[in-house]
């Protein structure tokens, strides 16, 4: 093979690759563009963003969704064409950008009136943009990678943490400043505005303080009036309670909360069979007591073990679980889902059956999330309660820009639970009861609405007062022979362990005895 032949092949390969990349990008853009509605906020992120960057963007979208913002998001080369459709643009941690992007953004800025706003999160692109628009004298660069962030959420508290960037940029002149970011003795801001440009130097969404402060600033940035946005409440959420857990422990926690008229929510795990077993009856009795004493019940989504997820199957499970709980006089008002359920069409479809959605901090590992281009889930008009961003060991919320839930596990010890509840009671963020809001859901055989204190299920008003359960003297478990074996196995496990332990000790003794005898007789027998 001669040199020219090799060169030709190389050129063909490179051209092919570039064409493929271009077509892929166009196709991806086209797929995104089809669905792009004109929303409140456009988030522009790096082309070819890695998983960490996408996770941060999704997190940002999620937190903005809780504030009922319609958000569109996409890579720089795709979203630049839609710039003019948005009044609020966030450039999230941009680094390498398409050639005409900066000019396009500069034109957008130049044409902008009072209603247009650009928020830069991160430093690299912000510096480049200012340089490109001949404003190099309007910022100061601090060449250090660590900064100390201090932020106050309610005026009195001041929370400190470290943030990392390649370097930090600060406006010289600002019209608005919030928080402080001290880098190499240079006292900068966490967030500042100058004209229509707003800048947050720290971009790391995995840092809870940074995330909480950033989302508060974004909320403020988006607020069109003077003062601060509305204050949203927080909820005490006794999270992921399984029917087989100790009902007495749950009752103790319920009494602790109900005793001081503290509103709370219990998230129960779904159950699909044997809803009339005595243990389930006892569990639901505690839930009914909670319902009648200021506590509300929500249901956690069935644990997804399907790949791919089947929406109808999931809804069927959910219906079964709801029917079982309803039969026991327990009326879940809302659905709790993993946070990544927001980014997949089928799970959005499942959520659309419920008005009120709680999101937990967990993620559904079986779910393949999609890059949707916008927070489609926003259209369903849910009432959102997100997981609180924990900035201290109590886990209470410091953010009032959206509703949040402070999670408590009944697995924790009683003192710890009590401490968290006390922290919630004294928090700046008010506690709220789910009973003070309207709720509804519809499933295959269930239609529930809760409005003005009346809970209507399938056209009938439900009684929410507490009535103790009646237990039969001898419950028939309807177990077949194999199920009885299984039960025996469960009850015998402890005895089996003891039997094995005793047998092992006996064996060890016999082994030692045999060794002793063998050694003793070794020289006397052939």
């Amino acid at each position, binding site marked *: 093979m001669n040199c020219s032949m090799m060169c030709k092949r190389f050129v063909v390969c490179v051209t092919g690759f570039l064409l493929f990349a271009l077509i892929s990008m166009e196709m991806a853009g086209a797929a995104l563009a089809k669905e792009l509605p004109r929303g409140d906020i456009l988030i522009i992120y790096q082309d070819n963003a890695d998983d960490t960057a996408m996770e941060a963007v999704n997190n940002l979208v999620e937190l903005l969704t809780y504030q009922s913002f319609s958000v569109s998001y996409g890579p720089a080369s795709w979203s630049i064409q839609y710039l003019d459709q948005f009044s609020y643009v966030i450039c999230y941690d941009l680094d390498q950008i398409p050639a005409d992007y900066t000019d396009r953004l500069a034109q957008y800025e130049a044409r902008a009136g009072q209603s247009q706003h650009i928020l830069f999160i991160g430093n690299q692109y912000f510096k480049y943009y200012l340089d490109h628009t001949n404003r190099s004298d309007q910022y100061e660069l601090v060449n250090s990678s660590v900064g100390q962030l201090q932020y106050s959420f309610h005026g009195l508290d001041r929370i400190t943490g470290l943030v990392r960037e390649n370097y930090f940029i600060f406006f010289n002149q600002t019209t608005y400043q919030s928080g402080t970011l001290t880098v190499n003795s240079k006292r900068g801001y966490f967030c500042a505005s100058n004209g229509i440009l707003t800048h947050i130097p720290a971009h790391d969404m995995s840092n809870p303080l940074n995330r909480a402060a950033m989302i508060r600033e974004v909320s403020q940035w988006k607020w069109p009036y003077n003062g601060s946005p509305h204050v949203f409440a927080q909820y005490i959420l006794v999270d992921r309670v399984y029917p087989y857990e100790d009902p007495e422990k749950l009752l103790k926690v319920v009494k602790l909360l109900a005793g001081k008229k503290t509103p709370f929510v219990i998230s129960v795990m779904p159950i699909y069979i044997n809803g009339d077993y005595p243990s389930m009856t006892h569990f639901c009795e505690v839930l009914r007591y909670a319902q009648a004493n200021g506590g509300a019940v929500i249901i956690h989504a069935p644990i997804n073990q399907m790949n791919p997820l089947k929406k109808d199957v999931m809804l069927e499970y959910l219906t079964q679980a709801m029917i079982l709980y309803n039969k026991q006089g327990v009326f879940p008002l809302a659905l709790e889902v993993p946070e990544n359920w927001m980014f997949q069409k089928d799970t959005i479809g499942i959520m659309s059956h419920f008005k009120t959605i709680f999101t937990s901090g967990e993620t559904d590992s079986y779910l393949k999330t999609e890059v949707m281009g916008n927070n489609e889930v926003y259209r369903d008009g849910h009432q959102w309660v997100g997981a609180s961003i924990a900035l201290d060991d109590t886990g209470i919320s410091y953010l009032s820009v959206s509703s949040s839930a402070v999670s408590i596990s009944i697995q924790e010890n009683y003192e710890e639970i009590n401490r968290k509840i006390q922290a919630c009671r004294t928090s700046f963020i008010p506690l709220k009861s789910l009973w003070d809001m309207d709720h509804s859901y519809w499933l295959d055989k269930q239609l529930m609405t809760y409005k003005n204190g009346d809970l209507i299920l399938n056209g009938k008003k439900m009684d929410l007062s507490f009535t103790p359960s009646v237990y039969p003297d001898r419950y028939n478990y309807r177990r*077949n022979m*194999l*199920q009885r*074996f*299984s*039960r025996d*196995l*469960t*009850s*015998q*496990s402890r005895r*089996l*362990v003891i039997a*094995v332990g005793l*047998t*092992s000790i*006996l*064996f*060890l003794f*016999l*082994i030692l*005895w*045999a*060794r002793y*005898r*063998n050694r003793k*007789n*070794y020289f006397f027998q052939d």
Partner: protein
Amino acid sequence: MSLIDVLAIYSIFAIWGLLFLNIVLSIGGYIYIMRMYRSDGHQPVSEYPMVTVMVPAHNESIVLKKTMEALLKFDYPKDLYEIIVVNDNSTDNSAQVLKTIQQKNPAARIIVINTDHIVGGKGKSNALNIALSMASGSVIAIYDADNTPEKQALRILVENLMSDDKLGAVIGKFRTRNKYASLLTRFVNIETLAYQCMNQAGRYFFFKLCTIPGTNYVIRRELIDRMGGWDVNALAEDTEISFRLYRMGYYIKFIPHAVTWEQEPQKLKQWFKQRTRWVKGNLYVLKSNFKYAFDPDAGIMRLDVIYYAMVYLMMFSSLIFSDMIFIIGILGLGHVTLGGFSSLLWEMAILLFVLNVSITLSVERNEFNFNNILLTFVMLFTYAKMWVLVVANGIIQGIRDVIYQKEVVWDKTERFDEMTEKGK
């Protein structure tokens, strides 16, 4: 409750049931062996009977010399035992080897029967029947051609047989001569000790039940005659004859002092062939005798039939099912949803298995060491799994033989020339 749950429950009950049965047998065996080791195994007899030592041999020239040397060294009265070797249609130089031995030992009563393919070559039972026709002893002793019994073995066996009229046969212990030859023979050595010796001892201790192991045993001549000789259709003639003895109202005794050392298959292929033959033979015996499991007149033998049925049906199927459940679980195709079902059950079963084998090793000299305990653990995941394959193969071949009405063929186990002997 899913099918997996049903199979899991079945496997758990079957495996744990058999595990506890083996534990009980091991404890009984331990007590019996320790009690027996307090004496030298000899019994006083007023008069020693004439004994015919029968050795069926088919192409065994590699091992015959060593075997004959051991047989000639018995401390049994020389004029009261004869050795009949059936050189069963051999194509090697067995005849020459035997002739030389005869010439070198003119005082010994060695009878060599050379058979051709018309009379011989039809398996061990047929060879034994031929030898029986020439035997003059009132007691018959059987040794395989690869055995090197210890010199006192025959005398101990005969003395014990003569001590009780209700004894139909007395069996000794067999050990692995070539245990250091390969990893496989090490496994076989442990298996032999745990599941042949200790198990036999345990069954004898509790129920006076033993199964003739095919070699190193003595049996009353009159009983063999009454039975009409060995069943030529049985591949496991030893098990078959044990059942017949019990049905006749006699019992079999295990004496651990009467030891023979035998050569075990060194290669997997030979081992697989030998064990498949055993499985087929035992399944044949099980099939022929299963009716006695429910016959009150069959006496204590019913327990042995049930025991064999448990090993070959319950143990085999439960191991298959548990492995299937494990694989299905690994592949994420299904899970056991039973309450109380946990890996702890398997871990405890493994612990008990290792301890159960260790107790057997502990009563033997030079067998209780770290290597053997480690091997016991390893064999659970290797050798025991191969046993499942052997049984599966045996069942498939057995079914095939029935469908195609194939004649029973004796698959001869290939012998190896042993260069060195360690540990004996």
